[in-house]
């Protein structure tokens, strides 16, 4: 594997693609949103259970490429237990990193493995799909389970 490829397909990404975490539907979700990337046909459905402004639980369903699957998997891990405001800040941080646009507020920890996508303009949407879907779910009115 050459260096550029390793930069994009980091071990953590390959691992989350092989064994996505928090995959499946969530019976007691009170927010739900769908995301679609028409360019590659990736679809994701996100389930959130938000109580007292805290993301109590989160899961996703859908089929996509390794980048979008791993991104969804790691996104669910990183927002679980966070407040809505913190999750929203993570969205902004991730978006800034992946698109190389705007102020980087600070280190994103494990999510930094997606830093390489900014070199691959055709793949930025794959990495950000789950996050845009999260944003849509977070900005829905409370107790809404309709899709975007």
């Amino acid at each position, binding site marked *: 594997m050459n260096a*550029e490829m390793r930069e994009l*397909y980091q071990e953590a990404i*390959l691992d989350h693609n092989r064994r996505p975490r928090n995959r499946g539907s969530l019976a007691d979700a009170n927010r739900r949103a769908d995301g679609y990337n028409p360019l*590659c*046909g*990736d*679809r994701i459905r996100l389930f959130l259970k938000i109580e007292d402004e805290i993301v109590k639980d989160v899961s996703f369903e859908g089929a996509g*490429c390794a980048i979008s699957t791993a991104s969804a998997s790691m996104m669910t891990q990183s927002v679980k237990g966070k407040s809505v405001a913190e999750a929203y800040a993570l969205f902004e941080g991730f978006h800034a990193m992946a698109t190389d646009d705007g102020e980087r507020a600070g280190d994103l920890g494990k999510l930094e493995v997606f830093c390489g996508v900014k070199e*691959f303009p*055709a793949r930025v949407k794959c990495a950000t799909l789950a996050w845009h879907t999260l944003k849509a779910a977070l900005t829905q009115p409370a107790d809404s389970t309709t899709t975007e």
Partner: protein
Amino acid sequence: MLTAGNALELRAQVENESCERAFDASRARLDFPILRHRIRGREIAYLDNAATTQKPQAVIDAEMSFYTSECSNVHRGVHTLSQRATASFESSRDVVRDFVGASDRKEIIFTRGTTEAINLVAQSFARPRLQPGDEVLITEMEHHSDIVPWQLVCQERGAVLRVVPVTDSGELELEAFHRLLGPRTRLVGIVHVSNALGTINPVRDVVRAAHDRGAVVLVDGAQAVAHIPVDVQELGCDFYAFSGHKLYGPTGIGVLYGKRELLESMPPYQGGGDMILSVTFAKTTYNELPYKFEAGTPNIAGAIGLGAAIRYLGALPFTAVMRHEDELLRMATEALSSLPGLRVIGTARRKTAVLSFVLEGVHPHDIGTIIDLEGVAIRTGHHCAQPLMERFGLPATARASFGLYNTISDVEALYQALQHVEEIFR
């Protein structure tokens, strides 16, 4: 398996055969300046010819020469440059007429491409004729550009769009076609060669059956003209659409062939300059064919470039080119099929130049990115044929598609790059 040893053997075999048939792809490759460029230090293995083909120097020169020594508007000037431009532009029309075997140059209309040609027929032919309950029959393997124009016009007119299914191997279900072809079918739209599967459709039989039922046939030839011989009179079709850019010509230029009596009976598609004989506020008299359908200043340089592309292709031994492409397709199919988890999508008996595939556990998008890093350009996605993808239960495929300048080296590069994909994802 394509080992180094038998690849060499295959190469020798191919070279021998090309010698015999007097077509040398590696020499033809030199006519295409872009293929001399390197990407990340590697020669480009350009296997995305179904999306667009590269352009030979002859085409680039023809466009350049128009702009450097003939640039002028057509059909309107008395001055020398305008006469030169008009002569070049109109001579391209003759080249196109010969190329598709039309009997009359009036039957060749320049458009922006296949998409515009189909929309022209939908709006000027179908729209005034369709009555509520009438039917337009297309196939499940159509490109979006041979689906959406019919949906639009059917919706507006209260007509019904019917769809002929395809088999698991990617062939048209002929029985279903004959069943669906009914007394209300006004028009049949069919792709000559499928861009997503490579299937060559039995257009002549389809035309015959449709005509027996009084239906008119439009053939989407976008993927056919560069790879198989096309003779519109032999096919018997009423309309034939194609794009210059998939035929080694420029973008922004394409052709609609239409039978003269049908074109005569149709109202103009767009109004403007060039398509009129006289205009008063009370009444406008339309120009004669083909100008009636060419409103406004056309893509003059594009049409001239298209003429040059067809001349370039015409100077090559086309039968040998076809055999060369078939051979590449056969070798690539064989080599790729040996990869574990690889499945070819589209295994019709008659196909050309397109190899669609999926790799178990690896999304096509990842395949495309990884092999691009090795200089191999393929297309991944739904190929503007979402209903077809749905039919096969796939969100997307990876697609390698061949052109006359591809060689066994490109197939080797593809095969090797796919091995690396395997290594990353296993």
